[in-house]
């Protein structure tokens, strides 16, 4: 059962590389996503048996697997529509004027997307630390080509940085895994060998050498922390998210970061079982606060709305780390709920950002105005998303942030609570003023329908991001035209998944259906173990 | 007991127009003129009441309501006024707040009536009136608060009753400060010399007179009578403090109070003859000074108890 969960997307990915016709490949993408979600839910109802101790489905893994699978389905639907609107032939990059670029072949994109899903599933299911490391490394390799989908100068740079920074981080994690294995080797006295699996390690954690387990946790934390985007080792995140296509950014923020977080939680489970829990709390708390601080610093005065969302991801990863750092069951429930809320809201925001980018053809916040009047549905979703991600009630993020704050205050950590609230306030101020300026006002931006100089043979105007630029790339700034730019027809596939996620975000704030509650409690119990 | 109060009220209503006559007569005395007859204001009122009225085409019902509400407020305020130690017709805790508020209502309707005419002069008068009264009102209230603190009473009738002599004995300097503050407020509220010149004819310099420039006939009569009542009101407060009354029969007390009022009018006349008008920007400093005096008095009262 678990193996099928992993192999299904992998096989589909391989097939996607081969299928020539685009339409079939997109259908395969959506079908695979649906199948995977079905299997995940089934795995929840009839928990499958672990496979030789290496692959197992525990509460924590199940929750984040559901998040990843659900988000992937929404992304698949969005990507299918997005790919159908993309032109494969070379076109002008509307940022740097003269340079022409073309897209990577669509097969590579879809294939890698599916491979990414299978690697993420492997990460969630892996209970063997070596296998976990291999899975996280393959996610890096699977996402590198996705970021480089639009083959232009900046996305290449983003990909390069992503590869170098993440690989160095992951190498440190490998070192941590080896140290952990060494500690396990020492613990396996009288012949019985302690494999480097979660259950075995936790079982005879008492016999693990404390110095080596601490060293192992340090390396694993910094290694997977790089991948999770905790400041100050988050540097790849803003570049990768702002240059990758929006659907990839949604998956990066919504799923990939959670994967690395699961890695850290596994290490923390082992560490606290071995009696070093207190050290884990301090480290995670420190990383959480630094991430919140860095996110607050970089969100203020941010002129690129996709980087704005990227730094918001750094902030929310900081909140997750902070929550685990505070410890206790109440904080654990807050963290688990917050992981879900963040993935839902961030996925929604990136998809809507993609729509806005497609029509306004600029990422500069100053030049985007009146989204509510030009793209009413996407505009509304944009505003709701920003409210959700900044933790404004009635959306879910408020409840989880409140739980974490309550845990902090109950534990008497006044300084942490103060820093946490201050950072959240600064981030709210920066994001709401940026988002409100974009959403409201009389619409600006190039009018896709009727620009004067129509290059011969250009395909009819449609919503595709990086659709063929009309006239000089500076049209977006120059041409405000007397009346506000006309309202743009928004295809269903562009806003349906985002609307579904928005509804879920609102639901999570007000009422919690039973299955979701049980999944959350299952994960919280596993997380609660980190006393 | 109520009879005395109503009697005092009637005394007030009848003798109020006499005081401007006394002031005018003292100024004439100082200037070596014979001056207008004491009952000049009565004659004016009688003449005006029998005249018709000319209303500007610009004005609305607000202009017509001004004098009526003004006079009503003045008379209602008189209901609350104790004279010569006897309680007022209507006396209750906090009646000084109602008194000050009624003066505020009088001022509000006069000013809106002035603005209704739409002339620059009336606007100027209205602006100055509101400006100075915004400073005079707090001084009056703080002075009364000092009195309340001293006598331990919150009703006017209680304050100006038998306890005044004791106050002079224990806190003479506080009482002195209160008297001087109230005197300045009296001059400011009734447009006497240091603040405003009642019988100038140059519109640009007037405050009260210019506000009522456009009123004629019965309206002007109401306004003049209300002004006289207001002078009587604030004068009675001042006299109530200055003339300490031993336990003497009420009739005699009332008589002494009226004599005190005449004396006050004479004092105002003297002040008007000896001083020239303050520059318009100096007046707020005078009022703030009076405010300072009242606050010092209040502090003294607070410290003592």
């Amino acid at each position, binding site marked *: 059962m678990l193996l099928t969960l992993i192999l299904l997307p992998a096989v589909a990915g391989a097939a996607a590389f081969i299928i020539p016709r685009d339409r079939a490949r997109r259908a395969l993408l959506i079908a695979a996503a649906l199948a995977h979600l079905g299997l995940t839910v089934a795995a929840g109802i009839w928990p499958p048996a672990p496979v030789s101790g290496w692959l197992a489905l525990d509460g924590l893994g199940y929750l984040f697997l559901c998040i990843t699978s659900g988000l992937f389905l929404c992304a698949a639907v969005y990507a299918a529509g997005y790919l159908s609107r993309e032109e494969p032939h070379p076109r002008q990059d509307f940022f740097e004027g003269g340079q022409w670029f073309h897209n990577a072949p669509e097969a590579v994109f879809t294939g890698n997307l599916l491979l990414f899903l299978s690697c993420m599933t492997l990460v969630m299911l892996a209970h063997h630390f070596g296998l976990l490391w291999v899975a996280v490394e393959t996610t890096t390799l699977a996402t590198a080509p996705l970021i480089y989908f639009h083959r232009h100068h900046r996305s290449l740079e983003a990909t390069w*940085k992503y590869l170098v920074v993440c690989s160095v981080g992951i190498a440190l994690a490998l070192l941590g895994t080896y140290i952990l294995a060494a500690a396990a080797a020492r613990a396996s006295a009288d012949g019985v060998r302690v494999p480097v699996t979660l259950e075995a390690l936790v079982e005879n954690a008492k016999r693990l050498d404390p*110095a080596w387990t*601490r*060293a192992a946790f*340090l390396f694993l934390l910094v290694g997977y922390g790089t991948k999770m985007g905790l400041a100050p*080792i988050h*540097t*790849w995140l803003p570049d990768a998210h702002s240059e990758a296509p929006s659907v990839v950014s949604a998956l990066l923020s919504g799923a990939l970061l959670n994967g690395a977080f699961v890695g850290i939680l596994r290490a923390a489970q082992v560490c606290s079982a071995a009696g070093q829990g207190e*050290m884990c709390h301090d480290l995670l708390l420190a990383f959480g606060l630094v991430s919140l601080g*860095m996110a607050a610093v*970089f969100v*203020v005065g941010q002129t690129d709305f996709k980087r704005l969302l990227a730094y918001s991801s750094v902030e929310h990863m900081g909140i997750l780390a902070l929550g685990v750092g505070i410890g206790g069951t109440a904080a654990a429930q807050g963290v688990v709920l917050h992981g879900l809320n963040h993935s839902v809201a961030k996925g929604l925001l990136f998809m809507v950002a993609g729509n806005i980018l497609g029509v306004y053809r600029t990422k500069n916040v100053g030049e985007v105005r009146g989204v509510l009047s030009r793209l009413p549905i996407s505009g509304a979703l944009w505003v709701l998303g920003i409210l959700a991600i900044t933790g404004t009630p009635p959306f879910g993020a*408020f409840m989880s942030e409140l739980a974490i704050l*309550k845990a902090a*205050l*109950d534990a008497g950590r006044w300084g942490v*609570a103060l820093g946490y609230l201050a950072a959240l306030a600064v981030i709210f101020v920066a994001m709401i003023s940026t988002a409100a*300026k974009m959403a*409201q006002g009389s619409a600006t931006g190039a009018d896709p329908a009727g620009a004067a100089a129509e290059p011969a043979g250009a395909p009819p105007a449609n919503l595709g991001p990086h659709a063929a630029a009309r006239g000089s790339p500076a049209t977006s700034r120059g041409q405000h035209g007397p009346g506000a730019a006309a309202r743009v027809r928004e295809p269903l596939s562009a806003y349906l998944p985002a609307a579904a996620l928005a509804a879920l975000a609102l639901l999570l704030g007000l009422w*919690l259906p039973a299955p979701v509650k049980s999944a959350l409690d299952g994960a919280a119990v596993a997380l609660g173990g980190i006393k | 007991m109520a009879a005395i109060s109503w009697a005092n009220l009637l005394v007030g209503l009848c003798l109020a127009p006499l005081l401007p006559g006394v002031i005018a007569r003292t100024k004439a005395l100082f200037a070596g003129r014979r001056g207008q007859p004491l009952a000049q204001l009565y004659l004016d009122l009688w003449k005006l*009441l029998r005249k*018709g009225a000319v209303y500007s*085409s610009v004005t*609305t*019902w607000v202009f017509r309501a001004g004098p*009526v509400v003004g006079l*009503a*407020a003045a008379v*209602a305020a008189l209901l609350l006024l104790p004279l010569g130690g006897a309680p007022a017709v*209507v006396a*209750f805790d*906090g009646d000084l707040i*109602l008194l000050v*508020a009624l003066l*505020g209502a009088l001022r*509000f309707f006069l*000013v*809106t009536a002035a*603005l209704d005419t*739409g*002339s*620059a*002069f009336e*606007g100027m008068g*209205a*602006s100055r009136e*509101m*400006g100075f009264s*915004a400073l*005079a*009102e707090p001084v009056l209230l703080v002075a009364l608060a000092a009195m*309340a*603190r001293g*006598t331990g009473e*919150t009703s006017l009738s209680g304050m100006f009753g038998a306890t005044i002599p004791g106050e002079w004995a224990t806190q003479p300097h506080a009482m002195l400060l209160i008297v001087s503050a109230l005197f300045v407020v009296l001059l400011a509220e009734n447009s006497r010399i240091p603040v405003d010149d009642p019988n100038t004819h140059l519109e640009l310099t007037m405050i009260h007179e210019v506000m009522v420039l*456009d009123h004629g*006939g*019965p309206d002007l009569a109401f306004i003049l009578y209300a002004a006289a009542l207001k002078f009587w009101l604030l004068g009675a407060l001042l006299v109530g403090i200055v003339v300490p009354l031993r336990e003497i029969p009420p009739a005699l007390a009332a008589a002494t109070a009226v004599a005190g009022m005449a004396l006050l009018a004479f004092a105002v006349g003297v002040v008007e003859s000896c001083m020239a008008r303050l520059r318009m920007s100096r007046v*707020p400093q005078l009022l703030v000074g009076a405010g300072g005096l009242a606050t010092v008095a209040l502090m003294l009262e607070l410290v003592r*108890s």
Partner: protein
Amino acid sequence: MHQILAGVALVVVGGVFALVADRWSGRAAGVSAALGLVLGGAFGAAEAIQVLLGVTPTPAAIRPEWAFPLEAASAAMGVDALSAFFLLPVFIVPALAAISGVVVMEEFAGHKAVGVFWFFFCLLAASLAVVMVARNGVLFLVAWEVMSVAAWFLITFHHESDRARDAGVIHLIAAHIGVAFLLGFFLLLAPGAGGLDFDTIAAARRATATATATASDQPTGGAMVVAPGVLFILALVGFGTKAGLAPGHVWLPEAHSAAPAFASAVLSGAMIKAGVYGLARALALIGCWEFWWGPTLVVVGIATAAYGALLALAQRDLKRVVAYSTVENAGIMVAGFGVGALGMSSGSAPLALLGFGGGMLHALNHAAFKPLLFLVTGSVHHAAGTYGMDRLGGLMKRMPWTGLGAVIGAVAACGLPPLNGFVSEFLIGLAAFRAEAAQPVEVAAPLVVVVGGLALVAGLVGAAFTRSVGVAFLGHPRAPEAERAREAGWPVTAPLVLLAGCCLFLGMAPVAVLPLLSRAAAVVAGMDGQIAGDVLRVAAGPLFEMQPAVLGFVGLVILFGWWRARLLARREVRTAVTWDCGYAAPAATMQYTSTSFTQQIVDLFGVVVRWRRRMTRPAGLFPTSAAVETLAPDPVTNELFAPAFRGAARLFRRLHGLHSGHVQVYVLYIAFTMLLVVAWKMG
């Protein structure tokens, strides 16, 4: 309780219908929303009055089973006298404003999202009601923020103008920072596993309060982990920003002048009350009273009142004058609470009940005359197309009903006798005077501030509203739009007259309101309703004795009016031109403008108002044109918040250099972090 929930449901249904009906016509949307609001309001207000009068015993809190994501949260709701008292304006004001709004909104039907506006209008009213009824910290905060977000959509209805957008953002930021403080307040109020239900909190705190009455407030029962002083400061700042107290008021004038007038009526009439209600509920929940709370509330209240009155003087825009007067009235309400807190800490029940009663009565009165003034400005804008007083004038002739409403609103706002503004200020003044006369020095001293402060504020507000009514409604029309102004239909004027009637009723018969007041004040003072009723009836004795004087005043007005009519009946009454010293051609521009009227006072307080004057002097021998323009931006925003926010933003942007763009530096960051972590944890 169920009637109120039915009312809230009706309002929300009205909103949803408006959203759907927008497809056919804007008017349909408006009508359905107004219908929902009126019906829901009627339902809710009926039960609120019953609860207040004690007809129906205060219904027990209902606690519906609801799977909130957070187990500390529960949907506990209940109505006690305090909630019922504040529910009155919350149900009545939006209904009246909606009736007037339907007409105003019609002209936007075609090209603006009117349906969405009405939906959020109803959502605002509904969430306000839920705030008043919520008995759980989390439910309270969720409703609170939904209220702020709904208000944001109302404020930014005209979002094409930059001012409206900025106002919306400032409003949201202020609301969110307020919530941050409230989060601290609610969570620290009942630390430990216990949920955030008000009843459990109140019981726990009362238990520990009595236990630690003697000892210092070190936690014995665990419930009092945090010093009550900290809780008080958190509540004051959190609810103060929403109520509009001095430093936190910056969003209020911007928001109220950006929103459509009838929406501002709801913002001022009902939403500000949420802040005041919150403060009252917090004081009730904290359970113990420290000596320094009273003076703090008094000083903050009076400072806010004076500041608001002063800024109202310096404005040229009719709506901003009314908005700043909201700040002033909020100050007076909080000053009333201050007097009440002084009474509680000095143990004198009459003073406490008078103070709280005065504060809350002022909140109710404000909910009557402030929407009246906002509807007046709305009607003026609907007719003349502008709020600027210097482009209005002479509207009384052209719009008699609106003019009448304006005068009544102004008299009530200035707190002058016949109307309701005076009654509540009288109660607060009476409490202050009584305590100041009889109480020991440390209680009397702050009350001197109240006495002097209220008098100064009355003077300033008097000047502000005489100027506003005078310049806008009286005299010659200063611009062609004012010339063409005509009265709008009955839906605009009917609510005006109704609200004016409310003001008159509350002013002339405060006795009727007293019983409602005593039970509500008892909740804040933590006393039993019955005892509070008797104590307040004795304490507020003067209110009954004042009746004859006030009725006498009104009687005299009628008497003299009749006398003058009889005098003039037989005489010749002519109309002529205003006396103009014989000048040949008086022009409308010769009249006093709004800033010239108040220049004298504002120059006196120049250090606070700091207004800027732009002057183009007449040049040359025969000067063709000269102009002087005075601007009065809000000093707190300009000198305090704007530089602070700009400085912080500049500092943060300088830190952006950390993301330098070189891969090598990023890898260095990783190595450095690794080194740091190892050193910290392995060293």
